[in-house]
């Protein structure tokens, strides 16, 4: 297990280095002079030069690259062009709202998706199974932002059952404000997980070792939960892991539609105001988060399924 963990972590680290390199390439390719853009067309050359040297733009490329890696690794993601605050502080300040959204969405997918998947597999071919199948495919197909806007239209503005704006104050209020946005983001995952789990369970049930377990008279309940689900849930866990990472970035849609604070709104506003340090800082943080979550998911799977520890190349 330890060798696998070490190798897998090494791979993640390599990926992070490449991501940072790609990010640097992107930054370096930004057309125009960021300092001039930030200060506006009427700024004097002296002011621009000063900002340029403050932003480190006058140094040769390789020095900039090293500086970039060094500052990121020490947690310095630069400063907000407008307010001067540390980008990292700003991002960590907004993260909790987005994390609320992510875990709210995952909550639905686990609470509804997993039981639906089990039910569909156990009642294969029944009406429940067929309806779930069509609905699952449908919610996966329709993009989350469309679902979000329609939910807003129908339940917040039309029926006025839920608030249309903001994140709320105390925990209960925050949960109340979370309902619609988390459903909008999570519905697709409910369908995806229900489908995956159903397919996994059916596949595992057909395998020879389940036949063996039955031949030894083990009770059906024990077979399903201890023997079948233990294996069938593994692909679902990978998917959940990927989902958390992907939700971090698609949260921007829910944050805009429901006017919530968060990482997505932060970066969206930053683009409009050309606040590049925030954009690059956020992209970096979310990508790193994504890589980290995938790493944790992979390690958890390797811990649960000993066969995985042998291979590293999927």
């Amino acid at each position, binding site marked *: 297990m330890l060798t696998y963990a070490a190798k897998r972590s090494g791979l993640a680290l*390599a*990926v992070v280095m490449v991501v940072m390199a790609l990010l640097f390439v992107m930054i370096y390719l930004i057309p125009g002079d960021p300092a001039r853009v930030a200060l506006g067309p009427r700024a004097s050359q002296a002011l621009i030069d000063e900002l340029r040297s403050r932003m480190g733009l006058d140094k040769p490329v390789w020095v900039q690259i090293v500086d970039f890696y060094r500052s990121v690794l020490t947690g310095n993601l630069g400063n907000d062009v407008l307010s001067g605050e540390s980008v990292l502080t700003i991002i960590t300040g907004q993260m909790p709202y987005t994390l609320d959204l992510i875990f709210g969405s995952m909550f639905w997918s686990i609470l509804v998706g997993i039981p639906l998947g089990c039910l569909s597999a156990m009642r294969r071919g029944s009406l429940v199974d067929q309806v779930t199948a069509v609905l699952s*495919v449908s919610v996966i197909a329709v*993009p989350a932002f*469309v679902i979000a*806007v*329609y939910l807003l*239209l129908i339940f917040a503005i039309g029926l006025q059952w839920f608030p249309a704006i903001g994140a709320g104050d105390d925990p209960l209020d925050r949960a109340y404000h979370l309902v619609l946005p988390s459903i909008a983001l999570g519905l697709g995952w409910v369908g995806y997980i229900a489908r995956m789990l159903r397919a996994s369970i059916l596949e595992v049930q057909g395998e020879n070792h389940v036949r063996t377990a039955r031949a030894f008279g083990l009770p059906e309940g024990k077979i399903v939960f201890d023997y079948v689900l233990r294996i069938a849930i593994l692909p679902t866990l990978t998917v959940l892991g990927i989902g958390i990472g*992907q939700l971090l970035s698609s949260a921007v849609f829910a944050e805009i539609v429901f006017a919530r604070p968060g990482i997505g709104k932060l970066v969206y506003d930053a683009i409009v105001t050309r606040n590049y340090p925030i954009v690059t800082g956020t992209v970096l943080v979310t990508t790193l988060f994504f890589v980290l979550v995938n790493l944790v998911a992979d390690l958890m799977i390797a811990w649960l399924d000993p066969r995985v520890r042998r291979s590293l190349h999927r």
Partner: protein
Amino acid sequence: MSAAASTAKPAAARRAKSALRRVLSEPLGLLGSLLVLLAVLGAGFAGFLAPDPIAMAPIDRFLAPSMDHLLGTDNLGRDLFARVLYGGRIALVVSLGATAASLLLGVAAGLVAGYGPPWLDNLLLLIFDALKSFPTVMLALALVTLLGPSEWAVVLVVIVANAPSYARMARTQTMSLRHAQFVEAERSLGAGAGRIIASHILPNIVGPILIVASMDIPVVIAIEAGMSFLGLGVRPPTPSWGTILESGFEYIQDSPWAVIAGGLPIIITTLGFTFLGEALRDTFDPKLATGPR
């Protein structure tokens, strides 16, 4: 020889026809095909079916659906039905173009990774993994910061998001075929790498990748609509379903019709292509079922 060749074409045509029949016999396959047909016809005949999508008539803003305006009007009095149909052109052209580009680049990269020396393979794999590590939305935001919003930004995002998966598939298949007996035979006859790749490996790997790509089309449509919704894609006044939805959202308190009009075609096409893609996959290769996006 000629007798065999002359029976090959009708046999392939027969297989295609029976596959088509199988797809259409599934209820979801039929529904999907109808929806896709609806979208394609709507986009294609937009000129005949609807008035000018850009003509503004501020007096007529926020009208409900009527015989004059089948889906009502938006905040600038533009006919929503026309905007939806013309938006369909953008959606389909950008999506299909971007998918084609991803396929070309992805498969090419995969072939190189699979057939080339190990160091190149490892390097490319690392790049593929790194590209796939970018969450799509963040990637879109970052690229638009660089390039400014446009259809090309959408295409680039789609390529970066999808090409690595195709590349990985192509690479795996290439690696397994590389040492196949018939390839060894060709090599011993003196065929160069390029010829082997082009005439022997490529035709054999293309099938499953095409099926996966066709199942990705609804995702690409969603990316285009999503980016336009965020103002990162198609620029006004060109109608795109995303921008229709976005301006509808801006004025959602005033009128629901733009929101309904913007969302409806997205739902129809994503459902349609998804149902159709699933039916196609079930017909051609059920083994491809389940795979994370």
